[in-house]
């Protein structure tokens, strides 16, 4: 096995280990709740007056059986793993008998549709601005740098709240929240799509703005750092053309930015949680918000699992991609050091 293969295997083992730890945490932590989660939820239901007597008893027993809560912990974990391997995340407490995987897969497309374009647009615009500010300097830098520094120092959910207030309340040119109007039901018709877009642009703008700020600050710093690197001076001294040098600088400065992009995409679900709540946008964040309010543990656990899988996978892909892209890692792994 070559050293490079060993690097790949090593990274794969790390990924599996981190994944196992994540699974155990996801299983174990909610079970630290004193007493038993089903007691809590059933007590809440009977307090609400919705269910009572024999119906409650039946509900209680079915929950205990489904989660195997009368079994020892290790058996519960095996049941949990068995269910997971079949793609089954359990039954929602609050919206019984809805399956958690159905609730999550209904909300996930909304989150992806919001976050992915926002991340991509924010990344492209932010890096372009940052690179221009770094190379050109002058008035452009004097505008771009302080603005992006200021924007990126505002907590992202605070920016979301401020934008919501300005555009939805003060100027009244955007709806105050939701993914579509209350009077509409989801369908693939032109009026519905227009309605969705009308609700979409503000959360999109909020997410993209945060990204532009952060990326611009990072890219500007990278460009300035690379411009001053020894290889640039050496190339200048050799009389290499400016375009070629710019290409070298670009390749080096882009590396961490590409990592950032991959990690942001992996973390897109957790990145939008709070903003979605601010805009009551019907994605994973709002689902989590509701689940927490109703102590809907299976839904909460389903969401945390989705977030962890996304982040861990993105990390793994970045590690592997670095092995191929970055000549320094390749050299180290193939035994030159």
């Amino acid at each position, binding site marked *: 096995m070559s050293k490079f293969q060993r690097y790949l295997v090593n990274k794969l083992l*790390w990924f599996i*280990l*981190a994944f196992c*730890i*994540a699974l155990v*945490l*996801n299983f174990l*932590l*909610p*079970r*630290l*709740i*004193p007493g038993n989660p089903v007691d*809590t939820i059933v007590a809440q239901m009977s307090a609400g007056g919705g269910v009572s007597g024999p119906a409650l008893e039946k509900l209680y027993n079915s929950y205990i059986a489904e989660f195997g809560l009368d079994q020892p912990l290790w058996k519960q974990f095996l049941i949990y793993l068995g269910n997971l391997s079949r793609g089954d995340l359990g039954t929602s407490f609050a919206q019984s008998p809805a399956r958690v995987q159905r609730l999550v897969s209904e909300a996930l497309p909304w989150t992806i549709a919001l976050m992915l374009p926002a991340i991509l647009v924010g990344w492209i615009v932010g890096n372009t601005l940052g690179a221009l500010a770094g190379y050109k300097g002058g008035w452009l830098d004097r505008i771009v740098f302080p603005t992006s520094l*200021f924007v990126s*120092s*505002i*907590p992202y*959910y*605070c920016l979301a*709240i*401020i934008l*919501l*207030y300005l555009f*939805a*309340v003060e100027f009244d040119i955007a709806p*105050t*929240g939701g993914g579509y109007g209350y009077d509409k039901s989801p369908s693939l018709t032109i009026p519905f799509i227009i309605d969705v877009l009308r609700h979409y642009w503000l959360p999109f703008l909020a997410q993209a703005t945060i990204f532009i700020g952060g990326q611009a600050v990072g890219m500007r710093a990278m460009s300035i750092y690379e411009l001053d690197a020894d290889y640039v001076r050496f190339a200048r001294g050799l009389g290499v053309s400016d375009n070629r040098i710019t290409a070298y600088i670009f390749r080096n400065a882009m590396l961490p930015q590409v990592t950032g992009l991959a990690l942001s995409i992996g*973390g897109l679900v*957790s990145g939008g*949680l*709070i903003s979605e*709540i*601010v805009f*009551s946008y019907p994605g994973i964040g709002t689902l*989590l*918000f509701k689940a*927490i*309010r109703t*102590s809907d*543990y299976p839904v*909460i*656990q389903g969401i*945390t699992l989705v*977030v*962890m899988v996304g*982040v*861990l996978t993105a*990390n793994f892909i970045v590690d592997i991609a670095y092995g191929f892209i970055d000549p320094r890692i390749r050299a180290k792994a193939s035994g030159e050091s």
Partner: protein
Amino acid sequence: MATIAPVSNAVSVRPGLLEGLRRSLAIATKRNRRFWFSLSLLTLLIAFSLFGPYVFDKTDPKRLIGGLYDSPSAEAWLGTDNFGRDVFTQLMFGTRTSLTIGVIAGLIAILIGVVIGTTAGYHGGRIEESLMAFTNIVITIPSIVILILLSIALTTRSVVTMGLIIGVTSWPWTARAVRAQTSSLRTREHVDIARISGAGAASLILREILPYMLSYIVMAFVLQLSSGILQEAALAMLGLGPSNAISLGIMLHWALLWESVRTGAWWAFIPPTVLLTLIAFSLLLLQSSADEIFNPRLRRK
């Protein structure tokens, strides 16, 4: 490079804590307006949260003084919240809670980070490998997920518990950075001299290595403090804030839950947002300007 220290004054350059602080502040006074601006802003925010209730004679954040979302008036300067409580009073106590949680989280994160970082960096070898492997795993698993899972497991959450769980999940970056600093510091002459004189590992780390990173640790604390406050606000907005106190995040949680935006009750959600932004902004500015003061190489020109 920073790692080269002349043998002759290797021992005498050890910065006395007060002397180093005095010298840094002297430089700061002369040159760095951003440092003073951020420090004043922060002091103002702390004073507002600590002494404000007595200065303005508004000491009971839970008292009901009106109805749902009453507009700002002579009595309620920033109106009332969804329960009819005074927003201005809540704001002072909320800032206090948020800052307290941030400080507890920051201290714990720094403590864990420094212990793991210095131990790994100083000993090297197997110890370093296993400690850093552990750190890397904690970094990969998103902290917000662990915080959500821990928070729902704790059915009642005090201010101290909130600080504790945030601190316990946010130390890895500090540990990484402290490890790097320690392994470059441990090869310095003054450390060798102390080692030859028979000092043990703990005393070497405490006396010969930590003092040289003090400025660095202070800045790491400021960053951890700021991220702790923001983590708390995020958790509280999800509905997982402290159960026995009012924090800025909890104010936002109620405001979002009770449709303050749709009803135009800006006083319920804009003030906590502005306070959070000011805290985050002043801490970030403090950190970056302090960085310039402590690291002369970063100063422009």
